[in-house]
């Protein structure tokens, strides 16, 4: 057990080092003229703008030296300055992270609240019309991307009720009710549209458990169907579901980037998009790294939780 945990921790650390390598190294693949494009729009300005931009990106140093310097800076929590307007990246992160975290967590909760029960019902009523309808729903959700659902809902709302998503962002600390109201629609749509895979996975996992002997035993000893489904089957079906929560979260994070754009929420996802548009690499590096760290951490936690929850898994 200890061996497994130590091994898993080491591999997580290696992965984190690898992600920093990739995030820093990606800039090295910039096409030659990109630095000139940045230099032309940047406030660094002056006759030696080109050299200055190269210096800021660490392109003027040997790869490992530049990487070392960058890593040292990032390790202290300083992501540097924007190449476009010279402002501190950390300031944007500080403003944007709570917004993205709120949207991401709410979507995750909605996604699980939709996906897991629907998957369970679909499995319990296997091959009935309810199962058919729910499975068709998951097939439709797999085919219609979340951003399309969001646009359709906004268009319908605007035509029918003359409602448009608010343009100004209300902070939670200023007005919690309006803030939550603002997040409700994007979080529901994002959670719901991401839930299809979770639905199918829950259904499969539940059907697997249904064939187990202990479920037959539970029925044979006369337990109510409700007790069989929820106490005996569902609790065991949950174990594999927990292992895919990390994958689900990664999917949600990808979705928040687009949804923050659609619903005008000033999170780090929308910041990432504007940074990509202006090719402001320090910001892109910072956010890509943060997202990767979150995914690595969640995967680590689910893996470790797995060994605690499932008594059959003993390393």
């Amino acid at each position: 057990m200890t061996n497994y945990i130590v091994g898993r921790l080491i591999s997580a650390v290696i992965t984190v080092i690898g992600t920093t390598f990739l995030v820093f190294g990606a800039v090295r693949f910039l096409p030659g003229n990109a630095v000139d494009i940045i230099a032309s729009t940047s406030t660094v300005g002056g006759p030696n703008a080109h050299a200055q931009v190269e210096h800021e990106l660490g392109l003027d140093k040997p790869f490992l030296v530049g990487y070392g310097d960058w890593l040292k800076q990032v390790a202290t929590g300083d992501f540097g300055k924007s190449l476009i307007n010279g402002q501190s990246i950390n300031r944007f992160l500080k403003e944007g992270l709570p917004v993205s975290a709120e949207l991401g967590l709410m979507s995750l909760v909605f996604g699980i609240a939709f996906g897991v029960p629907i998957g369970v019902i679909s499995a319990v009523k296997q091959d009935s019309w309810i199962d058919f309808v729910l499975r068709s729903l998951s097939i439709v959700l797999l085919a219609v991307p979340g951003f399309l659902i969001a646009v359709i809902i906004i268009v319908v709302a605007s035509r029918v009720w003359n409602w448009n998503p608010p343009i100004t962002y209300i902070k939670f600390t200023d007005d919690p009710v309006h803030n939550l109201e603002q997040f409700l629609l994007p979080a529901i749509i994002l959670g719901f549209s991401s839930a299809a895979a979770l639905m199918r996975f829950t259904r499969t996992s539940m059907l697997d458990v249904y064939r187990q002997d202990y479920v037959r035993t539970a029925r044979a000893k006369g337990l109510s169907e409700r007790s069989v489904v929820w106490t005996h089957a569902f609790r065991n079906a949950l174990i594999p579901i927990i292992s895919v929560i990390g994958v689900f979260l990664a999917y949600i994070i990808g979705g928040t980037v687009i949804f923050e754009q659609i619903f005008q929420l000033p999170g780090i996802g929308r910041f990432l998009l504007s940074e990509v548009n202006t090719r402001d690499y320090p910001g892109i590096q910072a956010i890509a790294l943060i997202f990767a760290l979150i995914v690595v951490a969640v995967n680590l936690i689910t893996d470790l939780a797995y060994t605690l929850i499932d008594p059959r898994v003993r390393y």
Partner: protein
Amino acid sequence: MALNSVAADPLSADFQPRPPRPFIVRVFLQLVREERVGFWGGLVPIVLMILLAVFAPLIAQAPPNQQNGDVLLHAPSFAHLLGTDENGRDVLARVAYGARVSLWVGFASVCIGVAIATVIGMVSGSAGGWVDLVLQRVVDVLMAFPSFVLILLIAAVLGPGERNTIIAIAVFLLAGPSRVIRGQVLAVKGNVYIEAAEVIGCSHTRVLIHHILPNVFDVIVVIMSINIAFAIITEAALSFIGLGIPPPNPDWGSMVSGTETAYLAQAPWIIAAAGGALAITVYAFNMLGDSLRDILDPRLRQL
């Protein structure tokens, strides 16, 4: 009696084994024989979309980028079967030419990505040792990023455009598929026929290409069919946020985008046409992928 004429005696001297059918024929016959609704439900829309893309110049009633100030946001009519957009461009033409972009990016990125993933997976699985260790840690790193964030990062470095979108999606597809293929190679490697091939002196390359590759081929086909839907959605999402195919090129993702949804609300036929085409295509590839997987390798259910 009748059976005897069908099953020739394999021990008789003049027994001629029937040559194996080509892969595509074998799979097609099996899919047809098992009468899978999902297969036809997938194949028919895909063929229709390919026809739409190929015959786009004949189907379109106007060039996709031709602006016409007289017909701004006109509803569907005989002159414009799917209506016009905010610049008076024919929506049917844009959907048809958009099909070219979507299908091309989907096929190209998956072919490139999965082809390289196959090489990585086969080398990693067959070499083992430190080669395997290093390659798999690289795959770990790629898999640590949320798919869309990694693709954004690559697209940000390369810049927008069709070719760069293909590269970005292909790079993302190196990770997951190569790991699945590696696992498959490891499973195949344990078979006696691989040992036999090695014993009679086949080189590593020969074992890899003539003995392992044919046995992981089914898995590669399943992975490709499943990921085409992913690639098409991702391309549309990139174009939707303005980082995929740059305007004014026709593209399903950018058609439903628009910086303001105001005119999309005035002209719901634009979303219906472009969004419908996107959803039907993705649905079709999902269906086809599912039935191929069920036929070729039911163990891959979790993909």
